[in-house]
């Protein structure tokens, strides 16, 4: 019998598991996929938002701000790639320019440090490749870029290291009340837990209904993105944001911690909760936006395209509720800021669970914070470290040329307490095959390692 079962091992579920693990609680983290963070958590804009543009007074606003602070500190401890590149929210039309002052005002009400107006000339000095016609901007110095894959994995590793039971490949199909506990039905077994937390992301409303609630409905909102070649990286220093609309934050161009430039996302509502296909129209609209915002990037090669689904609801705020009499908490409708607020959501929900009666007794020992390996260009990688290669030549044998991923790093990704189980898992732990050649050079050798053919 578990004290707490968390349904969903995305970035929010993993953050919560990590947070609960510091108490004397026996927790299960239940995930239908074969790895953590395979849903929206892996397919987003990879930005650690300050929350400057959230609605002051909302739960989202408080949790994004707090989450930015917590993850900003934690990233350094855990080795998660994080760069405080700052954001420039650019106005392209006079009506947009008229909104800039209110954006600064809102940012200040959200206690966003350093938010200020930037005039046209400073804007073009800082970003010389910006398309013509910008009328000024708002600077948000603390807006940052981060690795979403490492973040989820780091949370999960810490949770697992502290004793959380990670149940991958386990789909909860329903729940049954069991007196003083819940029975989670999975088709093959029953998982018993006193408390249940719903962190099921895109299936959050369906799970909520199992517990008799219907406070929100999820409409997946697809965001398509284009990743440009690393050779385009010098074209931009900060995140370029548009003036947001109520529907979406709009199309941005941003560096990534891996060294690429990212363009997107689109915003298309759909019914299907698993369709993450890109569309001709979506990609075309992104390229058109790039022509306006950063024309030089449109001449560079595209390395990858992908799409993620935001868990949007009919409400404007997060749908986080705790039902003490049911010993059930729901974390729903997190839309597009889950990565940023994940640690704060974990803190907030834990507090609420405690107030609802969950016993929160500190463990004696300080949990170990496992470090995740560096990805992309964020920190020195093994191929750049003579001592590492001297100690283990496998770190000097580069298999994925485009991303400089060594045999040693892929071997490490296939081992350990949270190993990769397929190519996607290897990609999220190393970036092998994610480079410009898209496996032209390395697909066969990476597949061989995955199949267990040791020593190429």
């Amino acid at each position, binding site marked *: 019998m578990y004290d707490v079962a968390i349904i969903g091992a995305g970035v929010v579920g993993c953050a919560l598991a990590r947070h609960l693990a510091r108490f004397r609680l026996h927790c299960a983290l239940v995930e239908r996929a074969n790895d953590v963070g395979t849903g929206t958590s892996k397919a987003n804009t990879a930005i650690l938002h300050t929350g400057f543009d959230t609605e002051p007074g909302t739960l989202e606003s408080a949790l994004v701000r707090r989450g930015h602070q917590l993850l900003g500190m934690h990233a350094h401890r855990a080795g998660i790639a994080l760069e405080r590149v700052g954001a420039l929210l650019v106005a392209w039309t006079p009506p947009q320019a008229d909104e800039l002052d209110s954006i600064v005002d809102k940012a200040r009400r959200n206690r966003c440090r350093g938010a200020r107006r930037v005039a046209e000339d400073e804007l073009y000095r800082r970003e010389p490749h910006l398309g013509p016609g910008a009328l000024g901007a708002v600077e948000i110095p603390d807006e940052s870029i981060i690795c979403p894959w490492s973040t989820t994995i780091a949370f999960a590793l810490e949770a697992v290291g502290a004793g959380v039971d990670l149940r991958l490949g386990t789909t909860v199909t329903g729940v049954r009340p069991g007196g003083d506990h819940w029975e989670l039905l999975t088709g093959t077994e029953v998982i018993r837990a006193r408390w249940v937390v719903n962190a099921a992301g895109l299936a959050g409303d369906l799970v909520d209904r199992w517990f008799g609630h219907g406070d929100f409905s999820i409409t997946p909102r697809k965001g398509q993105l284009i990743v440009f070649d690393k050779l385009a990286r010098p074209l931009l220093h900060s995140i370029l944001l548009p003036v947001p609309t109520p529907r979406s934050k709009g199309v941005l161009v941003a560096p990534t911690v891996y060294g690429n430039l990212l363009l997107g996302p689109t915003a298309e509502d759909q019914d299907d909760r698993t369709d993450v296909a890109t569309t001709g129209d979506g*990609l075309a609209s992104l390229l058109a936006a790039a022509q306006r915002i950063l024309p030089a990037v449109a001449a560079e090669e595209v390395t*990858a395209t992908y799409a993620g689904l935001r868990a949007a609801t009919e409400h404007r705020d997060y749908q986080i509720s705790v039902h003490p009499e049911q010993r059930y908490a729901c974390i729903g409708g997190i839309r597009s800021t889950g990565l940023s607020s994940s640690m704060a959501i974990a803190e907030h929900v834990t507090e609420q669970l405690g107030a609802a009666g969950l016993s929160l007794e500190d463990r004696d020992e300080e949990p170990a914070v496992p470090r995740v390996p560096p990805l992309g260009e964020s920190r020195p990688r093994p191929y750049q470290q003579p001592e590492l290669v001297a100690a283990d030549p496998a770190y000097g044998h580069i298999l994925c040329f485009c991303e*400089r991923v060594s045999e040693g790093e892929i071997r490490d990704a296939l081992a350990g307490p949270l190993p990769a189980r397929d190519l996607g898992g290897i990609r999220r732990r190393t970036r092998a095959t994610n480079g410009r050649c898209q496996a032209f050079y390395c*697909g*066969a050798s990476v597949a061989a390692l995955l199949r267990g053919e040791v020593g190429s």
Partner: protein
Amino acid sequence: MLVVEREEEAGGVPRHCAHTGFGVRDLRRVLSGPRYARRIVDLTERAGVEVSTRTMVTGWASPRVAEITGPAGVERVGATAVVLATGARERPRAARLVPGDRPAGVLTTGELQQLVHVRRGAAEAIGRRAVVVGAEHVSYSALLTLRRAGVRPIGMITSLERHQTVGLFALAAATALRVPLWTGTSLSAIRGRGRVSQVELAEVSSGRTRTIDADTVVFSGDWIPDHELARAGGLKIDPGTRGPAADLLGRTSGAGIFAAGNLVHPVEPADVVACRAARVGLAVADWLRAGTDPVPARLRVVATDGLLWVFPNLVAPGAADHGPFAIRSREHRHGATVVVEQGGQVVARHRLRRAVPNRTQEIPGTWVGALDPQAGAVLLRIEG
């Protein structure tokens, strides 16, 4: 002399082209790709050259000082002359912006060949019903590789009006292999969860689409030079080839930095590459002997209008017996004329019986002798 090769073995793409026809122009033999590769590497090593495999140049500490990583260690190596011969790769699905799902079973010919010929035992990765995108030489090589792996190629598609290979290959594919060629057709979407299940094909002229069942998509051809080191080294890149701009002797915009092979003309058959590269080798030897001589001022040679690229794309005016120029047409043409212009004046015309995209045509370079060093870039276009 050091050759740095990041793959397991030296020899390049021929290592995994398990068909014959290699070595005709340079070795005066007809060999399979793997045997040709081994022979070339053998000759190189016997000439006293050190060939370091599994070792990669990851960047430049400064011009002609390479940052190198290999199992033997991480180091910086400086050289008097550097030759970039990093070849070309096929543009993958993402670069071609083909929308849809992202299932397994989508690959380039390069990956396919390595799966079948180098890392054997990955047949399940390749599926049973494959569509080949492209109808260049390499696309027909992909057909052979698929057949070798026991996969049925169910069709080839090209957005152009005809194939771009030699008639013999196309005929063999149609008759012996019985693979239909759908011309004027593009791949408009890939569908499938986990694995490819269908592809959507669009008629280029009308936009009409149809869907066919397939579990493998092979993107072939559409070559782009692997120019990362050239760009990282600050070399000027030719917008047509997308490789470093270079002259007939392989001299780039960087002093003492040469470029050869499919990095500068994507792509030519291996023996053509080898013959041209031998000339670059002699130029490197000259540089080593008298390296303080500055490279003479050169003019850019620019492909415009119906031409995709021209090589060489740098030329020193006045050379009396300059060799031929390789050109690539964007479209199929019958009876076309290549016009060479400088400063608004036509310098030469050359009639071609026909032009085929993705295949090289050559035009003589005797007009280089008549170029005016002060009159600016040389522009090439194709008419008719």
